[in-house]
């Protein structure tokens, strides 16, 4: 069973550079939605600002393209408002780990049932090539002419440490792999983080398609994603020693955010709530 993938085509003109890794991610999303037998109106993608954050325009689903760094809070509001929606977040490394770092940390604590795709090209693209939170220390950029002075942020290790329940990495150059991870993330009942390695063909001359291709390797069937300590080790593998892609960590026993609120878990979606002003009259007793 699959819905027609063409249903997800948008007629908006695309502003990405030719050869951008975002195209692979976009194709993976459509493939995943189609294979999950979903229809466009059942899905909402929330994003912040950046090249990655334009994704909702280039795919026909509901979209909320909000403020820089603020892709997660509207997703939370939307999920509480309508728990039946399938909600994803697509934003870049700067948006998610820099400007939106606080929301990233606290939404891991919530275990909100959304799938979070971070288009991680290790550079600021839209603002033309400054170092991002994941740019390697020492890398020369259009802004850091003597090299980046600070250590890179490790999103996967942070997520695992914070208790994230689904932590994965993929590569924009492997549509099948990524589409599979998106599907797994969407099936996961809780917060699913997928950090996606993605070349920026215009501004990142270090982490090129070839650079990633030469270093990534897929976690095999013998890897146990329920072993948190092992996952932490894998999250710290990087660079010339190899970069693991796949589901690093998965915990299906944790309760998702919506399920932590009994009346929301057991009731209708809030958007279908029936309520009249008179229903609140009884609360006046508190003040007699």
């Amino acid at each position, binding site marked *: 069973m699959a819905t027609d993938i063409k249903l997800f085509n948008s007629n*908006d003109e695309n*502003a990405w550079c030719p050869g951008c890794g975002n195209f692979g991610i976009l194709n993976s999303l459509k493939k995943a939605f189609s294979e999950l037998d979903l*229809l*466009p*109106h*059942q899905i*909402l993608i*929330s994003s912040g*600002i950046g090249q990655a954050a*334009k994704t*909702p*325009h280039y795919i*026909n*689903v*509901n*979209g*909320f*393209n*909000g*403020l820089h760094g*603020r892709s*997660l*809070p*509207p*997703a*939370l*509001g*939307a999920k*509480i*408002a*309508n728990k*039946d*929606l399938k909600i994803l977040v697509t934003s870049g490394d700067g948006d998610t780990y820099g400007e939106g770092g*606080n*929301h990233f*940390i*606290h939404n891991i604590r919530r275990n909100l049932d959304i799938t979070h795709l971070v288009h991680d090209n290790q550079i600021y693209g839209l603002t033309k090539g400054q170092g991002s939170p994941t740019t390697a220390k020492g890398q020369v950029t259009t802004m850091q002419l003597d090299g980046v002075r600070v250590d890179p942020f490790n999103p996967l290790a942070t997520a695992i440490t914070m208790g994230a329940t689904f932590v994965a990495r993929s590569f924009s150059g492997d549509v099948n792999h990524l589409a599979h991870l998106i599907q797994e993330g969407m099936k996961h009942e809780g917060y699913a983080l997928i950090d996606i390695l993605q070349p920026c063909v215009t501004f990142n001359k270090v982490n090129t398609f070839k650079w990633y291709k030469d270093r990534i390797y897929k976690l095999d069937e013998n890897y146990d994603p329920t072993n948190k300590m092992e996952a932490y080790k894998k999250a710290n593998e990087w660079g010339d020693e190899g970069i693991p892609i796949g589901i690093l960590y998965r915990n299906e026993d944790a309760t998702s955010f919506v399920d932590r*609120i*009994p*009346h*929301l878990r057991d*009731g209708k979606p*809030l*958007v279908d*709530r029936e*309520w*009249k*002003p*008179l*229903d*609140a*009259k009884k*609360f*006046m007793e*508190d*003040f*007699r």
Partner: protein
Amino acid sequence: MRYNILIGGSAGQGMDTFSVLLEKILKRKGYYVFSNKDYMSRVRGGHNFIQIRFSTEPVYSYDDELDIIIGFDQNTVNFHSDKLKENGVFLCDENVKWEDNRTITIPMLKIAKEIGHARVFGTVGMGAVLKILGMSDSKVDEVFETKWEKETSESNKEAFKRGYHYVESRFESKEGTAENTILINGNQAIALGAIAGGVSFYSAYPMTPSTSIMTYISSKETEANLVVEQAEDEIAAINMAIGASFTGVRTMTGTSGGGFSLMTEALGLAGITEIPLVVANVQRPGPATGLPTRTEQSDLSFILTASHGEIPRMVLAVKDPEDAFYQTVRALNIADKYQMLVIILNDQYLADATQTVDEFNFDNLSIDRHIATASDIDLENYKRYEVTESGITPRVILGKIEGLTVIADSDEHTEEGHITESSEVRIEQMQKRMKRMDLLREELIEPDYFGDEDPETLLIGWGSMYGGLREATELLQKDGHKVGSLVFGDIYPLPTNLLEQYSKSVKTIVNVEQNYTGQLAKLIRQETGIHCEKNILKYDGRQLYAKEIYSRIKEEVL
């Protein structure tokens, strides 16, 4: 008959409980009650005080000529004893000393320990207060029984009795006759208005003095089937609210000045995406951390343009708890009707001031969502930001209509919601959004006017200044002055009919505000060219009260 009581002590001594119970007993005895809190930003120690004013007639403000002071700490003597009337009573435990013939010392703690619970010492004092006031002990038992479990309630009843019989009556109190009233503060009224008005999702970050809105709504979460989320910061709080509103539920957020500053970027987001949103800002003195637990009306100028760029907005200030309740419901309906931002201004004084008001009328309230369904729209050609004559485009609930998706964008966007840099589209969409400022003219409520029919002096205020101005105007009129007051609730767009009418005939216009720069006066001049010749301003964090306004008008204006 009107009495003023002050309770002073340090944080952690149970003054709040004392005050809440005493207010409730007085209210149930049929009196009109008004109480306000003055507390420091600390959990233990310091010096806090609560003033309770009650009467057989409605009361709108506080007064500092005191009939009774209850002193739980020595600072109460140092700070407040000069306000005690000649025939007043200073009531205290043995640990507080004041050599004055008005002092009545009761061994409150000793009696409490005899009963077996040191914590009931305050209740001993409460018994004494009622006796001193010449009142019976009616309503006391029922109030205690609703407050506490049986055992605690019994100890408190005993403590009350012991205090009651320890002293003699000093005053006479007429029977109270107020019926069908409730006792509620400004923030609780906003919270109850939010619940009645159909808020399904409220997200906020705790910040004094706005927190009690969130606390009250949260206490009804299950019963009312709504969700309250304590966000990681105010930026998250408002963006969550916008996301939930976009998805189709009625939402609201609330904060105080500093948190509001953090929210400003998202105000513009709500504006450009035409998403209904109500934000309550419970003001406190700034700048930065300012005076966290005190009051001011100094966010008005900021709020009128907060957020970069230009968006339509409505700003209204609440005047008392009753107004706060109805205005919150109204704000929610206006936000949905015009798909826009409505900001409710409150302040610490009103947020924490408890007042007896008529029971709220829920029967005539409505929740008007203005949501389009599949049958209302042309599915093939639906565009979320289609340019219409009114500027308002039908809004659907996403996810409910197969074959229909909606996209909202913080960038300037086409009618479909996609990013654009087209000059023509920009102009069309700006005009579409800003048309709301004209449409809102239909909704505006003129300011309240009270005082002389043909005034020579016009006092102008807004929001919480209502109570003080009302009493001050009466006092000035009693002295034979031809004075009237205009108190604004709706502030922006500014309703100008009454203002222009009175300004033509009066000799002097005086703005009375709780800030340094006279922010309402500036707005009035900006919008109408009308100039306030004099001003009464205060910015020490303590509310202007009726007698203070009265004396300053006499000294500085008349």
